[in-house]
């Protein structure tokens, strides 16, 4: 067990874990991070910090994680392979561990063409699965790629993302298995709106015995408006929002839509709690961190146990 790791501790105790997401500011602005830290403190077990999400330049994930840590939160460092080659990735892993960061989420990252630096060269030296394997080898074997030993291994709880809604469905579970084989300890999923398909995916995962080997946290994102729901459905790759959800948002007047979004989110969490093999929830309230406390409370997940 990794020292001072609330997330790992909570999951290993068999409790239903709660994580949230914090997007760093577009500036050298520690207060913005601290403000989000205050909002999330005591409401969740760990906080993911996104890494230049949607390929938009922001304060570094590593620095923001360090700030969260100093504020008493347990950060999850998100690292994308889009911007760093294997030298930089391994170096950042060591740096993160040295700063006391205890969780890492290894990702491919949104393509650079989507963000505000579309002229950037995409690195993609390793892919996310290879990266997971590299971190695991660093931690468990104490070596970097190529076998050279480290003076001290990074003690990290390794996470990966999974999208149960992307195609081809039959292959999605294979890919999950691959991530687990590579070394993922926990999985955070893409936002779940289509619970039927998610349950099917979970069933396939259970059939392969994968839920015994990894902690799965279901991802949820509260919808702010019907506009946002439609935008996500039409424009965000790998997003599956059923018509029923859109209808439900459409039926309520505009000023009540946020509330409805939160209700949908809370109901989703309640269903997730019932699904065998789901070990927690990952609340991604995009630029709406203040909603997290309310959602977690309404879902009956407060108070969070202290460690």
């Amino acid at each position: 067990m990794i020292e001072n790791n609330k997330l790992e501790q909570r999951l290993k105790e068999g409790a239903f874990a709660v994580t949230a997401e914090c997007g760093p500011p577009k500036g050298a602005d520690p207060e913005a991070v601290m403000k989000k830290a205050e909002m999330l403190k005591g409401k969740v077990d760990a906080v993911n910090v996104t890494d230049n999400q949607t390929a938009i330049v922001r304060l570094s994930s590593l620095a923001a994680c360090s700030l969260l840590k100093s504020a008493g939160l347990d950060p999850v460092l998100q690292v994308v392979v889009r911007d760093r080659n294997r030298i930089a990735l391994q170096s950042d892993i060591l740096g993160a561990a040295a700063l006391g960061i205890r969780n890492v989420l290894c990702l491919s990252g949104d393509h650079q063409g989507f963000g505000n630096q579309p002229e950037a060269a995409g690195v993609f030296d390793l892919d996310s699965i290879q990266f997971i394997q590299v971190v695991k080898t660093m931690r468990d074997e104490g070596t970097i790629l190529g076998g050279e030993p480290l003076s001290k291994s990074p003690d990290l709880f390794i996470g990966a993302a999974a999208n149960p809604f992307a195609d081809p469905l039959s292959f999605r579970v294979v890919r999950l298995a691959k991530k687990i084989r590579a070394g993922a300890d926990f999985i955070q999923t893409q936002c779940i709106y289509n619970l039927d398909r998610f349950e099917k995916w979970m069933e396939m995962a259970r059939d392969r015995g994968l839920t015994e080997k990894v902690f799965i946290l279901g991802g949820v994102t509260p919808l702010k408006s019907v506009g946002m729901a439609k935008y996500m459905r039409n424009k965000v790759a790998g997003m599956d929002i059923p018509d029923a959800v859109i209808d439900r948002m459409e039926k309520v007047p505009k000023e009540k839509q946020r509330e409805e979004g939160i209700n949908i989110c809370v109901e989703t969490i309640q269903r997730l709690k019932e699904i065998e093999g789901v070990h927690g929830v990952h609340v991604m309230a995009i630029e709406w961190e203040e909603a997290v406390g309310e959602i977690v409370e309404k879902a009956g997940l407060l108070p969070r146990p202290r460690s």
Partner: protein
Amino acid sequence: MITAEQKPIEEIREMIAPYKRILVAGCGSCVAECAAGGEKETGMLASTLRMAAKMDGKDVVIQEKTLDRQCVNEFVIQLDESIDQYDAVLSLGCGAGVQAVAEMYPEIPIIPALDTEFLGETMSQGLWIENCLGCGDCMLHYFGGVCPLARCSKQLLNGPCGGSMDGICEVNPEVPCAWQTIIERLENFKALERLEEVYPPKDWSKKQGRGPRKIIREDQQR
């Protein structure tokens, strides 16, 4: 084949502006196949540039010649007899052709008329697609004949990513997801379980070793 596209005429005119006697040199190989720098395109460009010069009242000589291959010295050398008449060469070769001419005639400025794009295939008339990066260590047998480096937008060797939907790449709706194709191919061969293994990181030293790569074949040398 190596594919290329002609630069905008305006850009070409700017680059050739300082010169008075210009040889427009085409290439009859790859860039002819992709209709960028073959004999026809070379003729068209030269003709257009001559007209432009006349309209500007400029007294310049613009002549054209298309070599069979601009990237092979044996062909480049055919410029020997006339090269002295010119004070610049506008090349419609790929980047390799341009450099081969520059190497042979280092005292004459050489100007690229094309933007060299990629190693690709002629899918149908007028449609070329990129499908190889020249990585120096081909893995196509493993991936069902589909190159994940050239054709997956994120160069995943353990794909697909979480954005693959309906067989379309999340990065570009005009592009099929390479990984969807890989999976379908391997399914055909009943070899899908191959993908359960983690494919190890790529050895990029075979592509970007120390400086430009070289192939030496003693049996082919004189």
